[in-house]
């Protein structure tokens, strides 16, 4: 059980002692029970920080934003930036460092272990609360306790937990400067890739009918891309090609942008977009599941990424976010890589 005070104290000390220029964490939002990202720079703000089942966001994204901001203003990082990171968030940070997006010393990772639970899936919760609105949520052992107008409601975490957490391979942030909570890696929840395995029992035709329906819903709000810490490219294959990447981009470069994918939310373009994303995330996705969480039309994007992740693990012995050093999945190979599919 994580003691919130410890979290706040850690943050306060970092700022007070001038060991970090800011702390990225969670605070109470204005929208029902949900927490929201917090960016605090003054020690006294530390008490705003919270840690509860609604701390769903992968804050690693804001380390990327911070980098871009610094680059844009040609500023040096100076003091490290501190971040509250769950197991998956920490893995994401490792991948970013593996890709040299920032240096280890530029980040102070305040790890928080998800212990017996993960975070809540609001869609699942809505079903359990049928109609009622929760104004607050707290961890309690393996349960969540919600406050609604009808009073307290205790639910077994695993019943309303996000799938990504049920299937979590490592709820403990291996990479950290400070860590709160116990290491409950290997806790008895759903096995990794359970949903994937279930899905793969379907026939090719069934799979297609399923994905067809999913992709047809996509409205191309690009939230999946915007929320993903790995989607840090300045130029994306699906961006409007009239948009100059940087002020330095030459007319030539602008004129020669490749239009791989149209912006139209048509099936072919939607599929190509999501496939491209899955490919670009292969060996990089740490299954924080944010893309799936934010999707306004509930497309099960994790399945695609999980598929790639499992291939990487099982066929290539590659584990994203495992180590800061080391080659990328597609930039390396092993002699024993599978090749039976080749004629």
């Amino acid at each position, binding site marked *: 059980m994580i003691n919130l005070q410890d979290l706040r104290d850690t943050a306060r000390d970092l700022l007070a002692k001038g060991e970090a220029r800011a702390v990225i964490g969670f605070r109470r939002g204005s929208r029902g029970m949900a927490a929201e990202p917090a960016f605090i720079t003054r020690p006294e703000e530390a008490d705003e920080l919270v840690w509860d089942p609604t701390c769903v966001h992968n804050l690693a994204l804001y380390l990327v934003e911070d980098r871009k901001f610094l680059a844009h203003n040609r500023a040096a990082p100076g003091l490290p930036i501190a971040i509250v990171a769950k197991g998956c968030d920490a893995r994401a940070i490792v991948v970013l460092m593996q890709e040299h997006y920032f240096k280890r010393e530029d980040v102070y990772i305040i790890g928080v272990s998800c212990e017996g639970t993960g975070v809540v899936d609001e869609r699942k919760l809505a079903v359990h609360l049928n109609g009622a609105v929760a104004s607050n949520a707290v961890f309690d052992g393996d349960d969540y306790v919600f406050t609604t107008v009808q009073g307290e409601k205790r639910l077994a975490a695993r019943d309303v937990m996000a799938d990504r957490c049920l299937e979590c391979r490592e709820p403990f942030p291996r990479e950290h400067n400070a860590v709160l909570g116990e290491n409950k890696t290997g806790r008895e929840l759903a096995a990794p890739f359970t949903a994937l395995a279930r899905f793969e029992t379907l026939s090719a035709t069934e799979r297609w009918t399923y994905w067809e329906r999913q992709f047809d819903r996509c409205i191309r709000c690009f939230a999946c891309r915007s929320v993903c810490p790995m989607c840090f490219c300045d130029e994306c294959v699906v961006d409007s*090609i*009239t948009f*100059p990447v940087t002020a330095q981009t*030459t*007319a*030539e470069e*602008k*004129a020669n*942008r490749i239009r791989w994918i149209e912006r139209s939310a048509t099936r072919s373009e939607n599929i190509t977009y999501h496939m491209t994303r899955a490919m670009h995330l292969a060996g990089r996705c740490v299954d924080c599941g944010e893309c799936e969480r934010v999707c306004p039309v509930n497309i099960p994007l994790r399945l695609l990424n999980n598929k790639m992740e499992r291939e990487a693990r099982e066929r290539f012995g590659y584990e994203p976010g495992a180590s800061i050093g080391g080659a990328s999945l597609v930039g390396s190979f092993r002699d024993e890589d599978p090749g039976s599919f080749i004629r």
Partner: protein
Amino acid sequence: MPDNIYLPELARVAYIKEEVGGERAIKTFRIEPVNGKTFEHECGQCAMLSLFGRGEMMISIASSPLIKEYKQFSIMRVGRVSTTFHELEVGDIVGIRGPYGNSFPVDDWRGKNLFFIGGGCGLAPIWPVITTAVAQRANFKNITVFYGGRSPRDIMYKTELEKLRGDVDVHLSVDKTEEGWSEFCGFVPANVMDKSPSSENAIAITCGPPIMIKYVIQNLRELGFADDQIYTTIENKMKCGIGKCGRCNVGKDYVCVKGPVFSWAELKELPEEY
């Protein structure tokens, strides 16, 4: 307004002239309607030019409304469409729709002294006003053109400017002088101060890089020009041209509808989002 506001007319490139070379080259294009007739426009208005398969871009019409047989555009090579435009050859067919936006209230300026202050490719948007004013020379008192570029090589409409002399006082300037440059050396606002025109019964029309406009306006006000004596045009990214796509939205206005021409009196009321 045509019933399909998005459907362009076809127009033929009749004439191409390279005004300025280099990385940010400027070329002037004359295009004439394929089917003989096209829309009429007023000084300062814009048109949406398109290359099918590449896209559209909003460009201010650089020719005088008095000229009906063609429309002239001076285009700097900065983006995707403009780069492709620079590859065109005489006879190629493009698309055009418009006219868009408001115009300079030229008629209200009868009997006044007109000062045109342009920099870089900023001469193009005010060029129709200059040529129209010259065509109706009698309607106006003194007409003065201040224009400057980085170097002599960056001066556009060279021959046209020379032709103006006599009807009009032309004061050219370059930021960096070169062998054989006889006129003013320095930034455009400085040139204006150097000649310090009187604000008496005058209208100043300026267009150019934002930074230039900023100082020109500053100087003009020093010279006693009132906010409603100063006019300029602004540009924002545009896609539709009719105040729907939302790109050029500044405050409650859409530059493609309420603009691009603003008096300083109007402009300073707008949020600085251009």
